[in-house]
């Protein structure tokens, strides 16, 4: 029974959604770290490059972290897609009702658009890695050490207005996605109690605005600052 129960868990509706929740929260944590690092753009090229260099110097450990991050991302994505496809069938197909209205007390624009904002983020992440992490490789020398000039790559990337606009759209998608996803993850894990859940929701909204707004502001800053 023990083994059966655990096996069931990983295939069950609740087990899988809890895995989406945990991976989602871990990704939320990653975004906070990423955003904090980005703020070094404001300090200057050396600070930003040094920070990136420290990360690069982690060597094999960095690969392990990156692989873990990729795994979390793919698990989140794969399970969410699987669950959504099952849900389309479960609700009785696309032509379920002639008219269907939300009560206004349940579903929100954020919760209704989760699959779409998620897919926007998927496309974004691919382009983002291509343009920046795997973008033009410049080198620079800071304090006598030669290192990658990721600052220059970043600045160049955001000189094109359409790139900035698309970036802000993607970050708005991230804000909408996390505005539902954050509190939703708590609910999935069973951490919903009348005593504190309103605050979890508030923190979720605050998080969404801070992350979406933070990344967007920095992109606009890069655009305005110029190379």
């Amino acid at each position, binding site marked *: 029974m023990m083994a059966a129960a655990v096996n069931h868990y990983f295939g*069950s509706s609740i087990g899988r*959604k809890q895995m989406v929740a945990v991976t989602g929260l871990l990704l939320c944590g990653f975004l906070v770290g990423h955003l904090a690092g980005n703020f070094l753009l404001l300090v200057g090229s050396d600070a930003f490059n040094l920070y990136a260099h420290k990360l690069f110097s982690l060597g094999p450990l960095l690969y392990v972290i990156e692989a873990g991050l990729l795994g979390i991302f793919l698990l989140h994505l794969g399970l969410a897609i699987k669950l959504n496809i099952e849900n389309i069938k*479960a*609700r009785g197909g696309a032509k379920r009702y002639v008219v269907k209205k939300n*009560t206004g007390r349940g579903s929100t624009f954020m919760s209704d658009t989760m699959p779409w904002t998620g897919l926007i983020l998927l496309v974004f992440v691919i382009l983002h890695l291509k343009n920046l992490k795997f973008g033009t490789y410049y080198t620079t020398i800071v304090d006598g050490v030669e290192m990658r000039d990721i600052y220059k790559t970043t600045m160049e990337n955001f000189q094109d207005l359409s790139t900035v606009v698309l970036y802000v759209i993607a970050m708005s998608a991230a804000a909408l996605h996390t505005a539902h996803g954050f509190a939703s993850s708590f609910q999935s894990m069973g951490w919903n109690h009348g005593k504190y859940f309103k605050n979890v929701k508030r923190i979720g909204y605050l998080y969404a605005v801070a992350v979406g707004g933070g990344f967007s502001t920095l992109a606009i800053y890069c655009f305005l600052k110029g190379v």
Partner: protein
Amino acid sequence: MSSNNDMTLNLKIWRQPNGAAEGKLVDYRAEHVSPDMSFLEMIDVLNDQLVKKGEDPIAFDHDCREGICGMCSMMINGKAHGGYKNTTTCQVHMRLYKDGDTIIIEPFRAKAFPLVKDLVVDRKGIDKVMMAGGFITANTGNAQDGNAILIPKPVADEAMDAAACIGCGACVASCPNGSGMLFMGAKISQLALLPQGQPESPRRSLNMVHTHDVNGFGNCTNHAECEATCPKGISIEHIARMNREYLKAAFTYYEKSRSEGGA
């Protein structure tokens, strides 16, 4: 019988002879509808007119007509039971509508609720999940004095709130995912809260969730549209309690097999 307040309504009702046949919305005019009628009485009157004309009356489910049996499933203008707070269809009264209104009536839809005829669907899936929760048939002698088991008032209240679920299926019909988590959460929660429900609690959540999943119910994504349409005001906090119970049971509950010395 008819008075000045009587209304004429334009109804568009889903007609479908059986699950395999094609269905469509059919226009009807309901005349002499009194504001004091319940929604179901309004359909009764329309059906009388149809029978007199020799037409097939509209099939719809109903039983108690007092908001406690959960049979009167239908979507009214795109919302389960009409979408009024804490109200079943049989408790919706025609005073909520105006003369000349158009009302669209459709059956509940979900993979777990196959259509039988017109507005009638088979909600057996709900019963299967409930049955998976288990029941007691062993003769355990006289029940002990109820007051001997101490249950704090807030806990008893919470269990009572969960027990209010009437298994109507509005949560499933209004859920964008056709998920049955709200009624299942209510059942699991109700029994998990009380000391008498503790012994079978882990086994119950494992069995119920499994039965839910294999009967075509969808996966919850926390829209909370169920909570908004539930005629009994069941809170999604009960879904959260079920999620906790299930997580705990999946990783800690252990029944020894016969070969391991179990029963």
